[in-house]
């Protein structure tokens, strides 16, 4: 029976770099390019790529792909700007795709 010591972390699927905390999940109801994705308020050890406009399921957004800082694997994207009022809450938050992150020992 493992004792949980410390925060529950997620790591990059490719190299094990810690990228986010379970406690920072805002919603688990998102769709990524390859399946399910989670919306996080904070991430760490990631690199933000260039901004681009993308038509997502919820409308037009300006997003930037995010990469693991160690191995440069694309893990998801960051919402930079939303063009509909109902989507504004996403600005500044991060999407991490479920297939790209793994639970770190929990």
């Amino acid at each position, binding site marked *: 029976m493992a004792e949980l010591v410390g925060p529950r972390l997620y790591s990059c699927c*490719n*190299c094990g*770099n810690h990228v986010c905390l379970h406690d920072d999940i805002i919603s688990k109801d998102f769709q990524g390019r390859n399946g399910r994705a989670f919306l996080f308020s904070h991430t760490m050890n990631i690199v933000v790529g260039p901004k681009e406009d993308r038509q997502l399921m919820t409308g037009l957004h300006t997003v930037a792909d995010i990469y693991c800082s*160690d*191995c440069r694997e694309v893990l998801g994207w960051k919402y930079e700007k939303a063009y509909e009022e109902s989507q504004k809450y996403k600005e500044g938050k991060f999407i991490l795709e479920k297939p790209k992150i793994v639970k770190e020992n929990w």
Partner: protein
Amino acid sequence: MNLSDDCLVSIFQKLQNGTDRNSFGLTCHRWLHIQNISRRSLTLHFSYETTAYQSYVRYLPTLLNRFSHLTSVSVAGCTELPDSALAGLKNLKTSLRSLSLYCCFKITDEGVTQVAIQCNRLVSLTLYRCNITDVGLEKIANFCELLENLNLSYCVNISDFGILALTRGCRLLHVLVVSGCRDVVGTGLRGCSERLEYIEAECCMFTREGLLEAVSAGGLKYLNLSSPRCSMNIDGIALVLAPRLQILNLRLCRFISNESIATISKACPLLEEWSVAVCHEIGALGWGEIGLNCCNLQVLHVNRCRNLCDRGLEALGEGCGRLRVLHMHGCKKVSHMGLELFRLRRSDVEIRSEERVSIGPRIYDFFA
């Protein structure tokens, strides 16, 4: 005056540029034959035009028929090339030394078997992302006894079973590339000869047993285990059996511990170039051991190591007497002061910020 074929061949070989050579061949059938038998290498490159690959598929059999003394054949990017196109290689039975097939996804065990049986004097073979399995490797092991250089990058359907066959059959094997072969863990290298000096296993998942087998022969000079696909700690113990190791690439092995680093630095006294870039677990203890034990180290890569601090850098500077180049950037715990102190103490060491993904000699030069 009738010149013999040898005379004509000598004359042809003095012609330096392509236009002259083509003009020679256009003179008459006999001279065309001389031009054809003088060609030694055939290379079909990657191309941005997809129509090029269609013409490769169409013309390869004709080309192999026409040039009967080729020593080297290379086909790149031809994803639709079928196994049957390789049948023409039987004309090159005695002369072919090197065959390279890059991204020829339709080449299967059948095609490789044909190649192995017909061209058993092969020295270098590249099967990059081909659709082969252990069956194909067994055939290569059975027939190509002279094989020295083998590149099986990203052939995801092969496993240690096939590698074992190769280890037993190709005793002259010198360079082995298994990068990206997910199911290869290294146990197939059991009993390899000491001629195996270069192992390139980037993005693999070598286990401790596998690593032990890989180094057991004692001849290993170059080992690349960078970017492993999972959170494995590479146990330094295995490398005790590799005293002749000169180049070691452990980039992105983020879980390698101080103890492993200590063991490796003591076990491999001849180490000349070592990459521990992005190895975050190495702390002051580990850096101290490198400084103390790596007397022959000339080039060290420590890019983006999170736990390289001033103390660690100092320890490296105090040791590693033969160090010439230090690749370092993005080490957040190294302060300006620490860096300047290192520079003052070790003005003989050049500090470069570039992060090298591959180190040491270009492995692909062996396949030329």
